[in-house]
């Protein structure tokens, strides 16, 4: 929009954040990126019983230019990986990615030569949704969590501050093997 970049941190920016967040999450349009079995559960989530239309999301846009959300539903093979990246690149910001299913999150049961071990090797993922395939209700839960994230997202200078903080925390984080006390 440009507006949020010009505002200093304050009550106006916060109001813009709230408004923009509400607008963005209320009619998030998914791109059709159904690959395998999870795609069928995604279609079932969009069909009559588990209705995605109540969130304004039943219009699965074929063109990535009109879509906000890419639900990677299914296993991504090495041949499909560049196509996935191209579709992601063609989407206009702001855009989000849900990795639906075990195969998209981590390669799933297919730890072999043909499958990318997690779609986060290729695109940045916002929500990981396990399951094989996840039930439509689980997909809706992931979408609602994403809605919360989008609604709470910071913009402009606030966002830059959050990004700096997250990066500093990630750089200073200890390797898992040195973290103590988590199980006590």
């Amino acid at each position, binding site marked *: 929009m440009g507006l949020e970049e010009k505002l200093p941190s304050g009550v106006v920016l916060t109001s813009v954040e709230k408004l923009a967040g509400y607008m963005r999450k209320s009619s998030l349009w998914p791109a*059709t*990126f*159904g*690959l*395998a*079995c999870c*795609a*069928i*559960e995604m*279609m*079932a989530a969009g*069909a*009559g*019983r588990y209705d995605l239309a109540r969130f304004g999301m039943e219009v*699965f846009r*074929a063109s*990535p230019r009109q879509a906000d959300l890419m639900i990677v539903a*299914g*296993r991504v*093979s090495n*041949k*499909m990986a*560049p*196509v996935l990246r*191209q*579709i992601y690149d063609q989407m206009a910001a702001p855009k989000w990615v849900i990795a639906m299913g075990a195969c998209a999150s981590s390669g799933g*049961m*297919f730890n*072999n*030569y*043909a*499958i990318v071990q997690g779609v986060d090797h290729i695109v940045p993922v916002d929500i990981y949704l396990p399951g*094989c*395939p996840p*039930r439509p209700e689980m997909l809706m839960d992931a979408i609602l969590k994403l809605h919360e994230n989008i609604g709470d997202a910071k913009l402009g200078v606030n966002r830059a501050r959050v990004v700096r903080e997250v990066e500093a925390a990630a750089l200073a984080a200890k390797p898992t093997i040195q973290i103590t006390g988590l199980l006590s």
Partner: protein
Amino acid sequence: MSTYSDPYAESRETTEGRVYSVTGGDWDSLATEIGATKEERVVVNMGPQHPSTHGVLRIILELEGETVTETRCGIGYLHTGIEKNAEYRSWTQGVTFVTRMDYLAPIFNETAYCLAVEKLLGITGDVPERASIIRVLMMELNRISSHMVALGTGALELGALSPMIFAFRERELVLDLFEMISGLRMNMAFVRPGGVAQDIPEGGVAKIRETVATLRKNFKDNEKLLIGNTIWMKRTQNIGYLDLAGCTTLGITGPVLRSAGLPWDLRKVAPYCGYENYDFDVITTDTADVYGRFLIRMQELEQSLRIIEQACDKLDKTVGQPVMVADKKIAWPSQLSVGADGMGNSLAHIREIMGESMESLIHHFKLVTEGFRVPAGQVYVAIESPRGETGVHLVSDGGTRPYRVHFREPSFNNLQSTSAMCEGSMIADVIGAIASIDPVMGGVDR
């Protein structure tokens, strides 16, 4: 292996190494090229990501205006290496892999694989009758749910939106039954070598009969919308023509072959799982077009309902019989039930293996970790899945893991016919023709 130059995947050397770009070219240079030749031919990618929900199929069309002059299918975008992965898993674990090939008809994949394993083991006659009846029941339910997706998405692609909602409504009823019987809606891993994982729960048969009655009533909604609908008929009649000679050359089976007039159904000509004891018709039309295949699928739904009712009667007669083969060295040992924490082995089974029978414990341990041994040899078993003949070529070298698992998926063969069906027609008919083949890319690419 030398690489060959692919005009759709040009490569260039960069500081990062060789980089391939799979874009298909720059529009400006393409337009100048076309202008230079004064021809109207354009090559278009109906790329791996497109709204036609048949999965990641890439159709390369050479167009002259709206007419398709040449079409080729690019597949492999969903290749999962399931066949190679199954060589590293025991025979029973193979079921969970194999079930995800044709993900709209998982029970068919499982049943074909299990029938092949049983043939290699030599226990085809020892599989209990109730297990075969449950297999037939699940297969026919799966046929209904698969045809519903085929009809729904086929209608959606051709512009009819309501049949999709109705079809998915019916499919949800069937998925409820799947969940009641096997625990999962899709990719159930329910059919195991030797039988099925567990028996139908209490009250299950009554619920199945109730659902059958509801489905019979609900199917009329879709029928009223589409059969005899002028627009639908204009879009589907005389489209995607493939006669009998074409079908036999290309190895096409299933509704496409039956639409050419040949009543070839493996459930009738080479029965398995006791199909010879069920009374049903093989639906055939002789128009060999999209409309004929659509009618076949709609009428096969009714035949499946008939078989399910007969299976329910047989289930009522065989209550209490085992659903797994009697040989303890092969039968999958665990009996699952909903325990205190929501899932797990039934307490009776745990009590038996931990307290009563050392032998049961050993069997459970060995079967789950190592798996049973299958004598060496190779078999080919074929069953009639909603798309055609699903064949399994299984090679064993005598061990606990398969030596080679190869699936002859019907969609792999059927998709080869897109060129024969679509060349010379218009782009819109390509969509209809492919919808009538009903390919599932998980099966094509495996």
